[in-house]
């Protein structure tokens, strides 16, 4: 019993990280319909910046906010300067984001070298909460809380605000939304920035959770993709459900069948695609 509770808790805390990365990606997918290979790079950049800023300032929350905002601005710049030039062509967008991903990867390697970094964070991240015979690390609780909070904020934004309604309209029909007088290019830039912000947030949290190192950008990317595929493009609720499914599958996979654990990514995706090609919460 203890095994199952501990593993489920670990799975859900990993799901929190997956939601941050995948949730940002699903927003970008929904509005822009692009395969954004640079999404993992936002995570990578956020993580390294977070580590560097924490070393300078000593404040985890300041480092978290500053890294996320900086990466969001970088993302908006990428959208404005590069992606807008190749709008509407899947392959060109994909190649472009791949180029950007490689650039960021090599830049980070140049600046921070090949050694992994761990962000220690505030002292209480090292503590655990004991309940019964079980212990729950504060860091993992923080991850779950942060992801839950962000989900609520994003959900409120998307469902209850005017800007959120514009985003939903652009997901369904960008042309028609534009014809109604909404500045869709500006909306796209904003959403791309928001997606980058979430990924960078995930990167900072992730660097405290499992470290930041060269190659983690491409390691996290397929998880983000599968969150989007399983949850359905543009659906935050879908991303949340998919992240939980995936986090649990990944954790139990690693605990029970370590050798083929990466394959546990494949199973939920295969099942969902076979039954509902547009994802659990996607609209076809």
């Amino acid at each position, binding site marked *: 019993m203890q095994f199952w509770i501990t593993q489920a808790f670990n799975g859900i805390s990993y799901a929190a990280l997956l939601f941050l990365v995948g949730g940002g990606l699903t927003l970008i*997918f929904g509005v822009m*319909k*692009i*395969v954004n*290979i640079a999404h993992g790079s936002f995570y990578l950049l956020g993580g390294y910046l977070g580590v560097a800023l924490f070393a300078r300032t000593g404040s985890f929350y300041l480092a978290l906010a500053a890294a996320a905002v900086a990466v969001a601005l970088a993302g908006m710049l990428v959208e404005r300067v*590069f992606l807008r*030039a*190749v709008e509407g*062509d*899947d*392959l*060109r*967008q*994909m*190649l*472009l984001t*791949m*180029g*950007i*991903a*490689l*650039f960021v*990867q*090599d*830049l980070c*390697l*140049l600046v921070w070298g090949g050694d992994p970094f761990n962000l220690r964070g505030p002292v209480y991240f090292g503590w655990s909460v004991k309940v019964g015979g079980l212990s729950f690390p504060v860091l993992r609780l923080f991850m779950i809380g942060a992801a839950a909070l962000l989900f609520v904020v994003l959900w409120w934004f998307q469902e209850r605000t005017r800007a959120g309604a514009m985003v939903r309209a652009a997901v369904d029909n960008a042309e028609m939304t534009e014809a109604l007088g909404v500045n869709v290019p500006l909306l796209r830039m904003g959403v791309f920035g928001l997606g980058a912000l979430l990924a960078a947030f995930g990167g900072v949290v992730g660097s405290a959770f499992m470290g930041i190192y060269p190659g983690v950008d*491409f390691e996290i*990317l*397929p998880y983000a*993709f*599968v969150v*989007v*595929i399983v949850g359905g*493009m543009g659906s935050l609720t879908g991303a949340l459900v998919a992240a939980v499914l995936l986090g649990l599958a990944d954790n139990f996979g690693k605990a029970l069948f*370590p*050798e*083929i*654990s*990466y*394959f546990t*990514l*494949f199973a939920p*995706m*295969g099942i969902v*695609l*076979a039954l509902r*090609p547009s994802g659990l919460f996607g609209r076809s």
Partner: protein
Amino acid sequence: MTAPAGRRVRAVLVLAGGVALVLLAVLPPSLPTYVVIVLTECLIYAVAAGSLDLLIGYTGLASLGHAAFFTVGAYTTALLATRSGASFGTALGASVLLAAAASAAVGLLALRASGIYFMMITLSVAMCAWGLAYRWVSLTGGDTGIVGIPRPRLGLGWLAGEGLEFYYATLALFAGCLVLLLLLVASPFGRTLVGIRDSESRMRVLGFNVWLHKYLALVIAGAFAGLAGSLYAYYNGFVGPNAVDLAHSMQFVLMVIVGGPGTLVGPLLGAFMITVLEKAVSVFTERWVMVLAAVYVVTALWAPRGLLGLLRPVRR
């Protein structure tokens, strides 16, 4: 195609291709060993890129997971050659069959979707292949990979000396693949694929089984990728997860686009260009990845129809 100009370009291309093949056959004995090694690698990647063009350029299926089938071929050959001492022919055949089978299995799933969904699914599949290679240590050796794959003994030493034996075997297989692919795209099957690329709904109304055509294209391309992977294992003597990571998976796509999708010859050129560029740049700087990043961005922004696309007049 606007007839005279297009036909002239085509004639020039066929001529250039013929000359290039003859040079590839005649020159190597007088070339430095290192150049022959690079040429071997070019030929192997050309097979992979050419078969990917069947999907991207001819069928309109932007598969980002071609490296997965390359991987299957590479590991199959690596395992058979090191653990059971299989002959060249056996390993090659098994690699092609297993890659085709893997492609058939993935195709069932990936063809449930289209467009950017298809791209995302195939990319995830490629990453799964990487993950298996990385973590399934008892089979694949994990990060260490499989080392000490012996070069096949082909009994062709009389032809050009031991050093060139594998090069010529690769060249022969490359030429065979090229002929097969050219026949395929010119066949009614190939023309149907182009029809599907241009308008899926039209082909469906005309009574073609669109799904089956796409599926077969995927399986065939997967088989060729398996062959390339098998040759790569022999060529490199070592197979590890690095050879099949995301960057390599995307590199096949880049080769196709840089050369010119839908031209078959273009992607072969693309494979040569990217491979040679990597070797050349690596002499001068450690920042090859930066250069590669620039190649991606420049291609996406200014040459989306590739090198041959620049030569051809715009159709339609």
